[in-house]
Every structure is written in C-alpha cells, then in structure tokens.
C-alpha cells in the first residue's frame, strides 16, 4: 500500500507539472518600453495634428496658438507659486468630493443591492441621476449654497456617487451563483457571506464604477470651478476662466493640458489597480 501511495504521489506530481507552466514575466525595462512607446507616439501624433491645424491658418494665431507658444507658457506656469496653489485647491476639492461620493455611493449601492424594496424604489433613479449632466445641478446648488465650496462639493458628490453605487450594484448582481453556493457550503451566511464572498467577488466591477465615478467627479468639478469662482481661492477652473477673459489663449490651452494630464495620471492609477486584480484572478490574456 505504501508503494502504491508513493506511485500515486509521483504520478500526480508528474501530471501537475505537465499541466501547469511556470510563469515568466518579461523584464521591467521591457515592460515599461512596451507600455510607454505607444503613448509617446500618440502624443507626438496629436502635437503634429495640432501644429498642422495652426499652420493651415484655419484660425488666427491669437485664438489658436501652436505648441511652440503654449509650452513656454506652460513652463512659466509650472514655475509659478500661484499656479501650484490653484492646483492644490482643485485637487483638494476633487479628493474631498470624490471621497464623500465613494462613501455615499458605496452605502447607497450596498443598500440597494441588499434590499429588494429599495431597489424597486430607487434602482432606476440612480441610473437616471447618472445620465443627468452635472452642470444642470449648478443653478440649484448656487441657490442652495451660494457661491461657496459647499456648492461645488454638492455637485461633485451628485455627479460621482451614482456611478460608484451602480458599480457596486452591478458587481453584487453578477457574482456567479456557483461561488455563492460554494460560500454557503464553507459556512458563510448572511453578513459573513457578504464579507467573504459577495464583496470580494464584486471587486472588479466595483473598481470600474470607482473609475467612472472619478471621471464624473473630475468633470463636475471643472464645470463647477468655471461657475463658482471664489476670489480668495484660485483654482484650475478659475485659471481657465481668467485666461479666457484676458484672451490669453496660450495660458488657456496650458491650463487645459494640465486638466488632461491630471485626468490621465488618475486613470493610469485606476488602470494599474484593475490590471493587478485581473492578474491575480487569472483574467489577463497571456499570449497576444
């Protein structure tokens, strides 16, 4: 029997080794390069197209300056303390609003996913809220809170929370029933089932909701900063508005590039999180 046991062990080990292949991730430099060059190429293309439009003389140069005038202006901004103060205030608003939206959206999403009555009552309303352009909220927000931080916060939260809630609801809804049964069999019931099976299983969809929520928060904030300008508080939006009023087109486009850049950086962070989840779950296609 001992011999049979050892035979079985070695046969199983042999089969296991044949059926799994060791993973060999590419080197770090190679990864950076393969991820980086398409982005650099895209930036170069975009700059080329921009310059081409400027050269075509479609608009006078005081309205549409080329990269050669915008980038020095951007460089001047980056060396300016007031610019950094306004970026700081904008980011602080963005993060505060987004954090509140994540908390509100998560609680709302969980409640709607858990309570059927609540789902029937407000389930479709959440999606409705999501499709409502956040700038449409501003007149009401300004009436309610005057031109204040609260008005901006109000709209950012309203803009982002529905996406977060919807992400969580969709995640909970799409948990494979087999995993629920497996969770039930290992002894997870009620809240424990939520904690150990339902929530982890809905994580990828939840992260997608968080990412979308960020996009909505950022857009709402930019809209808000154009409308709600507080004299003592410089911000990216106020900078944009200022540049327009002074007909400072290089400065305006420089601010736009900053808005785009921040958006891309945050998107990259979410992309990283998403990829690392999918890698752990085995959802990344290996060979392309």
């Amino acid at each position: 029997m001992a011999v049979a046991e050892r035979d079985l062990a070695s046969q199983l080990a042999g089969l296991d080794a044949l059926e799994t292949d060791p993973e060999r991730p590419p080197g770090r430099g190679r990864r950076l390069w393969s991820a980086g060059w398409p982005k650099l190429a895209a930036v170069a293309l975009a700059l080329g197209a921009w310059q081409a439009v400027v050269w075509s003389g479609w608009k006078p140069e005081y309205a549409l300056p080329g990269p050669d005038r915008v980038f020095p202006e951007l460089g001047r901004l980056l060396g300016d303390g007031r610019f950094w103060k306004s970026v700081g205030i904008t980011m602080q608003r963005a993060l505060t609003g987004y954090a509140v939206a994540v908390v509100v959206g998560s609680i709302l999403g969980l409640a709607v996913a858990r309570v059927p009555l609540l789902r029937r009552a407000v389930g479709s309303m959440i999606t409705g809220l999501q499709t409502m352009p956040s700038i449409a909220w501003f007149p009401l927000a300004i009436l309610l809170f005057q031109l204040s931080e609260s008005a901006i916060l109000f709209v950012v939260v309203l803009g982002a929370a529905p996406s977060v809630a919807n992400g969580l609801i969709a995640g909970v809804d799409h948990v494979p029933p087999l995993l629920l049964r497996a969770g039930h069999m290992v002894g997870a019931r009620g809240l424990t089932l939520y904690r150990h099976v339902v929530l982890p299983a809905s994580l990828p969809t939840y992260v997608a909701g968080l990412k979308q929520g960020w996009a909505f928060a950022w857009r709402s904030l930019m809209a808000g900063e154009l409308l709600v300008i507080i004299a003592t508080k410089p911000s990216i939006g106020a900078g944009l508005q200022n540049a327009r009023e002074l007909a400072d087109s290089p400065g305006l486009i420089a601010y736009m590039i900053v808005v785009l850049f921040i958006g891309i950086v945050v998107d990259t962070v979410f992309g990283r999180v998403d990829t690392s989840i999918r890698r752990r779950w085995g959802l990344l296609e290996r060979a392309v």
Partner: protein
Amino acid sequence: MTLAQPRPPATAVTPTLALRAVSKVFGQGRDRVVALDGVDLDVAPGEFVCVVGASGCGKSTALNLLAGLDRPSAGQVEVTGRPALMFQEAALFPWLTVRDNVALPLRLAGASRTERARRADELLERVHLAGQGSRRPHELSGGMRQRVALARSLAQDVDVLLMDEPFGALDAMTRDLLHDELERLWTASGLTVVFVTHNVREAARLGDRIVLLTSRPGRVAEEFPVDIPRPRRIDSTEVSGLAATVTDRLRAEVSRHGGR
C-alpha cells in the same frame, strides 16, 4: 433495503443520510417538472454510494437536498453529521490563494491565523499539493483545482462528502488518478460519500453500491451492490462487467422516453 455492503461491517447502524419518500417539484402549471418522485435512499456511515442516471433524473436535486441548499416538496431528508458539497467546477475563490481557499472554512469557524495556515498546509499535503499554497487558482490545472476543492471540503471537519460529477470535466488520465486519490482519502478518513455521476464505469470503480435513478420523474430504479475488492482499477474485468450490467439497465430505462 437488505443489500450486501462490504463496508461498513454489517452491524445495525443508523443511516448517516436518508431520503424518505422525498419528492421535489419545480415550477407550476405547464412548466411543472417533477424532479424527484418518492425517492427512498439510506446511506450508512462510511459508505460510498454512487448515484447514476441519465439526464433529468434529479441527481443534482437530490444532492442539493442532502446538502441543505434546497427543501423537498414532500417527504423527509435526514442528515446526521456535517455535509460538504463539491461541484463539477472547483468553485474556488479567485481572489484568494490556494492556501487561503482551503483555510476559509477554518477562518469562518474561528480558527487562529497560525492554526489556519498549519491545517491548510496539512490538508494540501493530503491531496498531494504540498508547496502549491501560495499559487492562485487560475494557475492550476483542472485536476489540481478539484483537489484544492477537496481539501477545502475536508477543512470543514465534514462527516459526509456530497460530490456532484466532480470529475466530469477532467480528462481520462487525470480522472483515473483522482479516483485513486479519492479512494485513498476515503479509506483513511471513514467519510461517508455520495457521488453523483453519469459515468457508469466511474460508479463501478468507486462505489460500495450503485443507485440507478430513472428520469422524469426521478425514482430509484434499481440498486447494485459492488462486491469487487479494493483497490480497484477502472479497466479491470470486474469493473467493466458490472458497468455493462448497469449500462444495460440504464439504456432500457432511457429508451422508455423515446416515445415510440
């Protein structure tokens, strides 16, 4: 039922599992499907019972009832001891490592961190997966995943293992080795096993007894004791012979549904 059972020794034992005149009906009106109709089944402690039948015989329904995942429409389900259910897919949690998958039942039962890690590694060793604990489920082959699922079931200190075509999706070679593995674990542990399969040879290879269910509605058509000494081989003449007998009976049963 007074069938010869090689295991356990023929002392009078109270059954670990019993279905008494159990019926299960799904749907209503025209969609009404009788999955099980008056099924009686006793399983003794330590017994290995294989349930075979064609599609629609309510095999999986019966297992769900025994696992407590569903309630019968009529009749009684008696289960002494703790059951664990295994599915055709391993149903491992992709966000946990192999070790944490095995340790989850222990965690839910309140075991300490060190205790959990120790027990999980011990269980992985029992299913010949020592050293694979830090890998992710998707990195393993189908056969390895089923062994992890087996270890996870064993982590619950179960008395009864309910298996729903657990090797159905595996290739023949892997399945053959897993038969050996399951037989070894069962012999060592004294678990009671109810193993549902549509593979008659598999049933003859593993079971102490084969229960044949009819289809639509599911009833017990016949029971076959398996008196072939262990360890068995799936390609032995005794196993093939018995499988042929059961298959003939199964075919006769299936042909009733042809409608001509």
